[in-house]
């Protein structure tokens, strides 16, 4: 499902109704909250510019995140994203790192939505997020901030 929702096909021609069959034996919780968060964010795809967000020289995105319900949208153009490492840093230097990796069964697409939930660093209002993609795309990925 995440493969379809992060595909170009969905971005260009999203259906009005989508029926998703989940086998009863499938435990979606095993892969943590990220999978479902990505599906929700990708389905909505309402990533708006966040006021005050800016990109530093090293490509890191700085923004006021207002809580931990935010999602980063990464778009590598035509290249597929297999793995992302996100580092979120508070102004006082505290940092959290999370790695999101597609499973062997996932379809690799150019887009990935990364939930920052649980990386709020104790309510710090201003966070700086940097991402590392694998495989590394030829051009820097487009990074947007969405409300999750």
């Amino acid at each position, binding site marked *: 499902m995440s493969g379809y929702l992060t595909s170009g096909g969905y971005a260009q021609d999203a259906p009005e109704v989508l029926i998703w069959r989940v086998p009863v034996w499938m*435990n979606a*919780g*095993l*892969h*943590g*909250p*990220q*999978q479902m968060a990505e599906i929700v964010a990708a389905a909505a795809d309402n990533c708006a510019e966040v006021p005050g967000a800016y990109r530093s020289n090293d490509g890191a995105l700085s923004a006021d995140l207002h809580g*931990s319900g935010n999602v980063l949208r990464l778009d590598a153009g035509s290249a597929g994203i297999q*793995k992302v*490492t996100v*580092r979120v840093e508070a102004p006082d230097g505290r*940092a*959290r*790192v*999370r*790695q*999101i*990796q*597609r*499973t062997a069964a996932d379809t690799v697409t150019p887009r990935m939505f990364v939930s920052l*939930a*649980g*990386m*709020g*660093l*104790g*309510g710090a209002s201003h966070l700086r997020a940097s991402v590392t993609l694998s495989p590394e795309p030829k051009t820097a990925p487009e990074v947007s901030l969405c409300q999750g």
Partner: protein
Amino acid sequence: MILRYGLAALFCAALFPAPLAAERLTLSFLPPDLPPGDICNRDRERFEETEIQIDDGASQRVLLDDPHRVQLLSREIRNWQRTDPEGAFDFILALIDRKAELEPDYGGTPAVFDRIDTYRLAGRLDALAETGLIQSLTDQIDMLDWSDAVRVARYHLNGLGGTDDPDFARRIIVDRAYMGSAIALEEILRMQLRGEAPEYWTLSAEETAKLAFGGIVGQLDRGICHRAERIAQAYLDGDLLTPDPTLAFAWRKFAADQGGAQAAWRVVEHLLNAAPSQQNRADLAHYLQLAVGNGIVVRPDLIEVIADSGAETEEQLRRILGVDRARAGLETRVSAEPFMELDVRLFDAGIADDSEMLQFLHEIAGLPEAPAQVYTRLAREILLRKGRWTGRDEAIVVLRQAADGGDPEAILLLAELLLVERRSPSVVAEVEALLSGAVTQHGYAPAMEALEALYRCKLPGAPYLDDAEYWAEAARTADVAAVMVSANDLARLDRRYEPEVIARLQSHALAGAARSAALWLQFLQSDVRTPETVLRHWADQVARSNIALETFALQQFDLALTPRARASAAEFVARAYLDIGPAIALEYAITLLEDRGRDPGTASLIGELLEGASLRGEGAAIRLMQRLTSADPVEVFATYAEAVGKRGDFLAQMIAASHVDDATFELYMDRAISMMSCTTKDITEVAEAYLSRDMGAEALRWMRIGQSLPGGHTLAKLRISDAQIAAFGIGLSAAVSSKQPTYEVARGHGDLQRAFYATSVPGSDRFDPTAAARALVLLIGDGTDDGTLWAAKHYRQAVTAVRDQVDAVLSLRGLLAERADTGDLEAQAQLGLLLRDTAEGPDDLAASTQWLRLAARAGHAEAMVDYAVAVGFGIGRDPDSRWALTWLERADAMQTRRARDFIPVFAAMADQ
């Protein structure tokens, strides 16, 4: 074509075919009546695998020679074929090639069969057809021996041969059967039972079976024990024959008498599991001696050593097994123990730095096709052999390879080892990435729990509650956490009141979780209606896993309620120890200590076990040893300081805290925290370690971490489990609700019963005899049978303060007597017990026994047991143990579990 009737001379002690069942044959096929001998040990070859138990590299021998290398390769091939033939496909073929290089005899037909099996098990049937492997065997089928030819025929029967010619396969099988091939005859018997035998096969199923099993027995050569075990298995698995454990035992006894070590051990197990009245101590000693003398346990190079020191070795096993103890009474529960087939190994107390297994794993990890799990095993072996701390750097290198290869178990271990450097931000970042990657990529739930522990306990400055709760919630959502239930709670789990716990236990057990399998088996044992086949299946599952076996064995001991049951459970823990090895030495020592620690001989054994565990860096053993001996803690630590530094576990590092310099203390604390469980117990240990060095601020921080644990401090929960707390007031299961007349009544009962439970326990904060009595009175007064009888039962168990207040309001005796007079059996039984429990004189006791008699005579099964107890012990009448036995046997026939508790007691009294 020749029918080899000559075989009959070997086995015809008894051969009585019975009429055919639908799919099984009932056949009484006894072993030949031969004098004891040593046939199975004649001219033993070094490469024979069937009778040799391979030690998991726990010995001190360091040079891996080719014969042992071949054995390990064989086992590796089998394991991968069984567990992951598709994922490890190329690796298995590489192992087969390697084995073929080392053993020319294997390199021919046997290797071809192994390759075919690998393709088949991996589901690569088209690729198998393209290899032409089966065709190559088919082309030379006349040169193959009988069993190989039949094996090829089976491929064709199953459509694997690339040709669809089942008639060809049947002809091959029938031809070999006429030649006297046992395996071909067995195949034909199988066809006959399915109704698919060729028309030109003219013998009946019974005649075919006689020839097949006679052929399996075959010649009296050293393979006879292995073949006898095949027949024993046929009588156990129920595939061809109607199961008959007695005949299976007879075949094993036969094999043991002919020198079969494994069979002798099986006989020992059988005798250990027998009821006391059927136990033959002389037989037990005899077969134990045979098992040890014939080399159960060990590799061929140790057999001679054991033979040379037979008496000492046997004595060692006797001590471990505790077989000299007097026993009385009987088992009280259905038991799966008789179905456990365990191994037995001898091992050294210490651990050598090197091992054949370590060398072997290095070798196979060097194969380019090696799966990631091989690297993980190699890393674990390095940590075991060299010590967790001295081998850490080497293990990390190997684990990185395993993690890159996609083994989440390696990722978890790597993260734990890296976390010793938890003060380094770059290391922490790597650990976070590794663990979160294991979750998102591999769906590895333990990594979520590790992340929760990282943020709650392990990072400097913890707890970080937002992060910890995020992962705790994720783990809860995944719902894969092990079901935590104590042995006692497990034994009385009620489908009506704890359906979720039971369902989760079963699901986890079916999914292969080792500990859950053990708990599930315990649950099954608590129900006398559990079929033997079910017990046998789960016993087999538990016996295969060290973790499951350890869990099960220790719970058996916890659940033992009588001296006899305790002795039996202690013996079983001993067997588990012999099977698992040093990993449960400490638990075994604790069991011995609880069971018979005051016995000087046992105390000596406990000392040996603790000494070994201490040398392996197990802090709990060091601590227990110090407490048992009251030795100077400084001296005790000095004795094991090197072991602690090299391989000490969490508790060992804690013990070291007050004995080392500041720099070492900091290192040891980092080590301990990297591997700790984020639980009340470990957190308290860490806090106390800081306190021991007057580091109050850190101790306070750890106390705060303890406060942050979900559900609060363990000690604040009384004896209530998290599951019980979570289930409070959520409603009854459908099974209960459907039996209630109305929802309102059920809710009313539930509330009152809960109120009684909450207020009737002396010593608890909520103890309130007035409230408890009110709940009982209301239940009695609600006019329903259930309410009154429930109240009567709990009134009997209540303390005097509660009873007095109930008595002040109503006469429970009177109410029950009114109903008993109407012929209400349950009321009669309850009244009988009430009179007995609250008797003030002989008249009450006589009346009690009369009511129980009435209920028993009318068919009330539980009353039969209670009446029998009264009769047997002479409560309210003269004692008569024979009459008591009569009633107990009636109750037992009605599947009343308690009856079995008392039968041996009164049987013994009757004998006197």
